[in-house]
């Protein structure tokens, strides 16, 4: 596994921050935007230059989104001790997700679109540029794909990767997602009036919206029989992609999509709902999401298991959030512990659900991770200690 977020530059640092209940959201950012300093963000405080130095990609035209992806990708393949021949093998796939891609360079894009002379970034504005950079740098020959289903993108990348293995189209997959802070998304979410000017407060009656964040995470998945004596953190046992089919930018009152994705994930895992020990909720801190997600959890579980949202630590990292939270869900399992939700004071009146508020040691076998996106794209994953 590899991860970089506002609460740390590695899995170990993220783990430490989660245990300490650290909030990475602040008014500090490297971003150039009118809202820098005005609104809180879950920013990674490395400049592009520092990231390039750390990753030895100096001189190349590489976007911040790609740099963050490379940072997490490198940690993941090192952690999994993949050899060069394993990475380049035709049965090793790379499935990455992003919603911003090269659109972090909005001013450059605007200039390039309005002049005859291309900047060095002209080929880097789309979403695929991130994974095409990784493919080229690591000379990968297997299936390479980029998925964009808004905020559920990297949960779908993980699911797609797992299905490639299950269908015999890959032996191992490197799956994940990335997004960097961009004027495009900041202004988009601001126009929708769902950016909070305070720290986000997932599942709180007084919540005022989300904080955008940035980050990346990658995971290496292999088939159980190929693992042999390698280190195994967890099993991906369940997944389901389902559509709310209600509205382009909000979820239906009853949470049809979230309900169906959680239920479907239980079915693919062959688990009873009582077996879920913890839910890493989507929990963005918006009025709509948190109430609908609560409603869907109540519908499915009657008495929902322990749950919390780590977006109160990292902000909402959009296309990266599913992968980052997959890493966090796996940390729940590896260390048998639950990390506290931050900034929570009072439950939503209509649902009354209270997230876990203190660091807790707990025996957990199965963790569910939810990701719901614009357009109603809902995906739930289930990670397990044993399979």
């Amino acid at each position, binding site marked *: 596994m590899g991860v970089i977020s506002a609460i740390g530059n590695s899995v170990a640092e993220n783990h430490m921050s989660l245990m300490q209940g650290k909030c990475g959201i602040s008014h500090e950012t490297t971003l150039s935007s009118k809202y820098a300093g005005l609104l809180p963000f879950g920013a990674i405080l490395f400049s592009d230059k520092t990231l390039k130095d750390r990753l030895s990609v100096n001189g190349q035209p590489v976007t911040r989104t790609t740099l963050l992806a490379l940072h997490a990708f490198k940690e993941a393949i090192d952690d999994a001790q993949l050899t060069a021949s394993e990475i380049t093998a035709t049965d090793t796939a790379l499935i990455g997700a992003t919603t911003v891609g090269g659109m972090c360079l909005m001013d450059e894009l605007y200039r390039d679109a309005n002049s005859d002379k291309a900047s060095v970034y002209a080929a880097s504005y*789309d979403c695929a540029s991130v994974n095409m950079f990784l493919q080229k740098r690591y000379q990968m020959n297997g*299936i390479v794909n*980029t998925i964009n289903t808004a905020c559920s993108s990297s949960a779908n990348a993980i699911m797609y990767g797992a299905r490639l293995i299950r269908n015999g189209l890959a032996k191992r997959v490197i799956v994940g997602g990335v997004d960097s802070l961009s004027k495009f998304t900041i202004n988009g979410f601001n*126009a929708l009036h769902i950016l909070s000017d305070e720290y986000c407060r997932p599942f709180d009656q007084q919540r005022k919206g989300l904080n955008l964040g940035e980050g990346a995470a990658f995971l290496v998945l292999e088939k159980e029989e190929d693992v042999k004596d390698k280190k195994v953190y967890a099993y991906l046992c369940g997944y389901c992609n389902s559509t709310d089919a209600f509205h382009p930018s909000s979820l239906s009152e009853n949470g049809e999509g979230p309900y169906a994705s959680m239920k479907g994930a239980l079915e693919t895992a062959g688990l009873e709902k009582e077996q879920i020990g913890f839910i890493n909720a989507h929990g963005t801190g918006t009025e709509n999401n948190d109430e609908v997600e609560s409603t869907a959890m109540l519908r499915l579980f009657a008495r929902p298991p322990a749950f919390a949202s780590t977006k109160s630590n990292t902000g909402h990292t959009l296309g990266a959030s599913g992968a980052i939270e997959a890493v966090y869900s796996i940390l729940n399992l590896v260390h048998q512990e639950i990390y506290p939700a931050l900034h929570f004071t009072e439950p939503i009146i209509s649902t009354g659900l209270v997230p876990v508020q203190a660091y807790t040691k707990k025996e957990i076998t199965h963790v569910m991770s939810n990701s719901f*996106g614009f357009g109603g794209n809902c995906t739930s994953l289930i990670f397990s200690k044993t399979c």
Partner: protein
Amino acid sequence: MFYIHQYSCISPQETFLKNDIETLHASTENILHVIEPAYTGFPPGALRRMGKASRMGMGTAMQVLQNNAKPDGFIVGTANGGMEESIRFLKQIIEYNEDTLAPGSFVQSTANAIASQLGMSTQNHGYNITHVHKGLSFENSVIDVGMLLKENPEHSYLLGGVDEIASYNYNIEYAAGCYKKEITSNKELYNVNSSGSIAGEGAAMFLVNNTVENASAKLCALATLHTDDKRMVLDWMRSFIEKELPAGETIDLFLTGDDGDSRHAELFSSCEALVNIDTTIARFKHMCGEYPTASAFALWLACVLPVNKPLPQHMLSRKGAEQNIKNVLIYNCHQGVQHSFMLVCRAL
């Protein structure tokens, strides 16, 4: 992999409802713009809120689903999604200096707008995904559907590829050297020795499942790779044919995504040299232009090619022995780096 039952295509040619591939409409200033039909059956007001990519996607999807077909999921490949809407929003941000903006364009600009609108308009809660891997966005959608139909053999799915050309992506790609500098008609695309291609756009949608009865074609196999090494492409093509073409069968038509870019001429001619001497060789990018999901247009073309009649003259690069085209090998290449092979078996 699976069978194609219904299909629909909006392209720079008169393909929508008419399937006219004989008449070749000309490009204007190195761009082949789609011929948009008068859309019918959309909810009132919906059309006005949609960008071109959404309109084309919805228009072709509604056509495919017109017999009240209820697919179990929507799988869409699009490199750029709502390009026009992205640009509109980007312009607002820059020109109004990030002041309070209207969110409509932002919501419509997300790549998954097409697939999710399809889910909404059909009230479908099933699998819904958008693949955005540039020149292999449609191919990854095909891989996805292939897996879905193994996992759920009774299901049917709507599969599509959609991309639009707007002034912004044209300008950026032009500046990056993707398109020809001199004005070149699509009718002369393969006769001009210069770098770059001509731009295009389009939408193609397919209703697919595992049912052989009444199918128009079977998509038998697919392979994708990333490389700028010609030898590697040739190796992949050789092994793809060896592995996927059933014994005793021949490739009747080699349909290539030759983009008229002199930098790729040797690549395409080397690939053409690999097929049998009596295989017909034809091309399609002079009809649709170069765009990331042009392979969806090629697959649609493989479904509608005439039976017992010669191919349109404008497509032919070399006329082969077999007039009854059963097995079609489609080779596409996007910007010299993203390659795909599709083997299509037509019902005759």
